[in-house]
């Protein structure tokens, strides 16, 4: 188990290193000089040169990469070109919206998908299964931002149960905060729940055909007991993979959903930064998102080992 974890950790670090290189050099080839962009077209050349020195733009590519990575490791993401404030602070503020939103959505999606998938698998071919499968087929096809607009129309504009947008802030209390994230979380979660429920169902159905399920029945377990005691844990292996993949969709989806609800999250930050050509902010947010995806995949790998003893004893 330890060796497996260490090996995974090693590949996590390698992935992060390569990802940071890719991001750095992609931003590097972006046209335009940030310093002249910040100072406008009328700036004096020596002012631009001074700012370049201040921003470290006159150094070699390699040393700037090293400085960027080194800074990030110590929590210093640099200074925003447009706002002249530390990027780390800007991101931290926004993260308090985006991360809870993604986790809220992930929790909702899992809570909806597991019972739905298990129910459908247990009633394979019957009316209940058909209904769940039909609903998921529709759920998969709905764009989450459109679904969000419909939720706003119904629950905010017509029923007035929720605000149409904005975030009250966590200072108002946990419940108030969650309340204002509920519509965004639902609109993120439902399409993902539809996918997850389908995966859960088909994973369970695959397991139902396994020899050891027949063995369980031969021991005297009922169909339901066999499904719960032997099916579920084995079915978790493919389901975990999808949950890991979904996290990256949820993060990316959150960026779009923030636009619908005018939430002050990472999404709005990155779009503002793009239009202001504040590339250091773009660079840092992208790195953060990629870091999150890679880390979640690492956690999924560890979860595999917890579920599957064969992985624990292998390398």
């Amino acid at each position, binding site marked *: 188990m330890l060796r497996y974890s260490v090996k995974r950790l090693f590949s996590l670090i390698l992935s992060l290193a390569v990802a940071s290189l890719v991001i750095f050099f992609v931003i590097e080839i*972006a046209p335009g000089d940030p310093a002249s962009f910040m100072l406008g077209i009328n700036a004096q050349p020596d002012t631009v040169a001074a700012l370049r020195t201040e921003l470290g733009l006159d150094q070699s590519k390699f040393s700037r990469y090293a400085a960027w990575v080194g800074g990030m490791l110590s929590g210093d993401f640099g200074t925003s070109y447009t706002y002249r404030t530390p990027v780390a602070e800007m991101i931290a503020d926004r993260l308090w919206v985006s991360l809870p939103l993604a986790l809220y959505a992930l929790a909702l999606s899992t809570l909806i998908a597991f019972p739905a998938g298990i129910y459908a698998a247990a009633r394979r071919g019957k009316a209940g299964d058909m209904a769940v499968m039909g609903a998921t087929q529709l759920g998969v096809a709905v764009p989450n931002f*459109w679904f969000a607009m419909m939720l706003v129309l119904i629950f905010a504009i017509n029923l007035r149960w929720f605000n149409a947008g904005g975030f009250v802030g966590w200072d108002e209390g946990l419940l108030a905060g969650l309340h204002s994230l509920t519509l965004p979380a639902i609109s993120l979660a439902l399409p993902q729940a539809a996918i997850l429920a389908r995966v859960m169902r088909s994973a369970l159905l695959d397991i139902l055909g396994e020899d050891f399920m027949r063995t369980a029945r031969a021991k005297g377990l009922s169909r339901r007991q066999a499904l719960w005691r032997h099916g579920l844990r084995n079915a978790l292996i493919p389901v975990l993979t999808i949950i890991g993949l979904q996290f990256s969709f949820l993060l990316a989806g959150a960026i779009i959903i923030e636009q619908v609800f005018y939430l002050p999250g990472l999404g709005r930050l990155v779009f503002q930064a793009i239009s202001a050509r504040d590339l250091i902010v773009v660079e840092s947010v992208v790195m953060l*998102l990629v870091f999150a995806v890679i880390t979640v995949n690492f956690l999924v790998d560890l979860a595999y080992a917890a579920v599957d003893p064969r992985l624990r004893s292998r390398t």
Partner: protein
Amino acid sequence: MSRNLILGGALSALVLLAAMVSFVWTPFDHTTMDIPSKLQTPNAIHWLGTDHFGRDIFSMIMVGARTSIAVALVAVGIGMSIGVPLGLAAAARSGSWLDELIMRGNDLVFAFPSLVIAILITAIFGAGAVNAIIAIGIFNIPVFARITRGAALSLWQREFILAARVAGKNAARISAEHILPNVANLLIVQGTIQFSLGILAEAGLSYVGLGAQPPTPSWGRMLADAQTMVSFAPHLALIPGTAIILTVLGLNLMGDGLRDWLDPKLRVART
């Protein structure tokens, strides 16, 4: 043929037809503004109503189908034409450094959701439909590489491949002659699914302004325009949304139907 395949095929064909017809005919010119007749609900003249500039929504939907299909199709093409050879090569040299390199490269690309790629590209080159294509296409590469490799790996263990190796055929020839035809069904099904995901992704990117730019019509941008008016003109959001849902639903049903139809073993196992 299953009900799924017929229904899905019909829906997909309808969307494709609308896109094709839009090249030669639309009820109105989709760019012509007609402010006096703005925000009409569906009626006999404007079958699906008009938007806030008085443009005919039916025409915009028809032309928008073109954008959606073009972006998704090219993105699937990019994913397949790069991902499939990579997957075949990785499987043919399974366990080698080449396999390792391809698979680690795949993992790396998977860490960049297509929206993030689109953000990066936009940061450099500015927004546009081409960027959406590239972003979705890059994300499709590891999808096809993985699925091809997975299926090819199990085929390499099959005895008919061993027989071909005994007959002295090299890996490239075996991949082309024996592996590819036997994974083709799988790729067709996955292609349909990626196509529908591409439509969704294009809509999302256009919605946030990273996709097709005006005047190129796009379902996603129609929704972005509709957002501020959803309280008094909900049809502006309902109609493009329904167009996206029906297209994606059609493609997904077709994918499911194709999978069952192309794989008789699966058809038996499912009943």
